[in-house]
């Protein structure tokens, strides 16, 4: 009656009912705890660098060299086409400490530049991202941060683009549903593109 096989089976059965139940309870607390959070976000644009890339493009300063390298990396195994690119320097003060709770494994924080063009009705480009895994690091405070990724367009033309910069964060839980939130909004026009 009470063989080794029986005992093992009962134990496994118990584990397979209690553990999922606990995990579901944990996952359900997430939205409730998140409702209480009040993140504060402040974005300020310091500078926008705009350039037109062509094969004759010779970077004259450090900033242009960075943009050049990023643009080239964007086109592996092929010659990069002529095209507009923009890089931004920004200040960011984002206090996401209250977003952290016991079911937050990681916050993936990213700045999104969103713009519209006559032909492309919807464009979103991530210009910067940051990974937070500890509550202590959840207050991001930076001056003159350089964006990691270039703003580019599908047809490679950015002239006259008027976009919005917003901070998003993606909450990756210990277990449960992934949640995306956003806050803050700054209008950043790309007015002129210097060409060569």
């Amino acid at each position, binding site marked *: 009656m009470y063989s080794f096989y029986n005992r093992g089976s009962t134990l496994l059965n118990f584990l397979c009912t209690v553990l999922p139940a606990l995990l579901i309870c944990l996952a359900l607390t997430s939205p409730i705890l998140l409702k209480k959070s009040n993140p504060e976000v402040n974005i300020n644009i310091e500078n926008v660098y705009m350039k037109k890339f062509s094969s004759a493009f010779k970077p004259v300063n450090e900033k242009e060299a960075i943009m050049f390298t990023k643009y080239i990396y964007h086109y592996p195994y092929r010659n990069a086409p002529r095209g507009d690119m923009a890089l931004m320097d920004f200040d960011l003060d984002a206090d996401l400490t209250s977003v952290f709770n016991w079911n937050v494994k990681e916050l993936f924080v990213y700045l999104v530049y969103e713009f519209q063009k006559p032909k492309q009705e919807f464009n979103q480009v991530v210009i910067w991202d940051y990974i937070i*895994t500890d509550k202590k690091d959840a207050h991001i405070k930076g001056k003159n941060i350089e964006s990691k990724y270039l703003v580019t367009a599908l047809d490679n033309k950015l002239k006259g683009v008027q976009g919005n910069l917003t901070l998003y964060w993606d909450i990756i839980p210990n277990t449960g*549903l*992934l949640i995306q939130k956003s806050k803050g909004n700054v209008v950043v026009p790309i007015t002129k593109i210097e060409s060569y």
Partner: protein
Amino acid sequence: MLSSLFPGKSHREIAHQILNIFMIVTSAFMSWKALSVITNSESPIVVVLSESMEPAFHRGDLLFLTLPKQEPFVVGDIVVYKIKGQDIPIVHRVLKIHKENGEDFILTKGDNNSVDDRALYNKDQLWIKKSDIIGKVKGFLPYIGYVTIVMSDYPKLKYAVLALLIILMFFEKEEN
């Protein structure tokens, strides 16, 4: 012949056991397909195989995908896509989206990679389209999928476990 393999069991009992095994296999297959219909994704549950999304997802984490028809893709979504001509699905985050005439042009990047995914796409390919995407990651369960990684790394173990399960099913005594 079968009765000599399983002494002390009648033909009916053996047939019953075999049908039972088929029941388990078909109901597992049915629930998988039902989940696939509900989530509109050809593969609603996937196991993370690479380290390119660390520290968010580790090898062996289980991801639950959906692909609702009306829901648009936005930047920051973690998607699972399969490039035409390649077998292995990739779990990465959307870095850029451009929409032209209702068609999405999507560029992805792994959180743990230093450059975007264009080097992973086909040679003449700059963007992925909606048709390349299997699903959006909506839910997360850690570690459970590691079993399947071990199984595919050691195929012999997989067959051993399968054989053991089948043998156990045959010798299971029903207590009424």
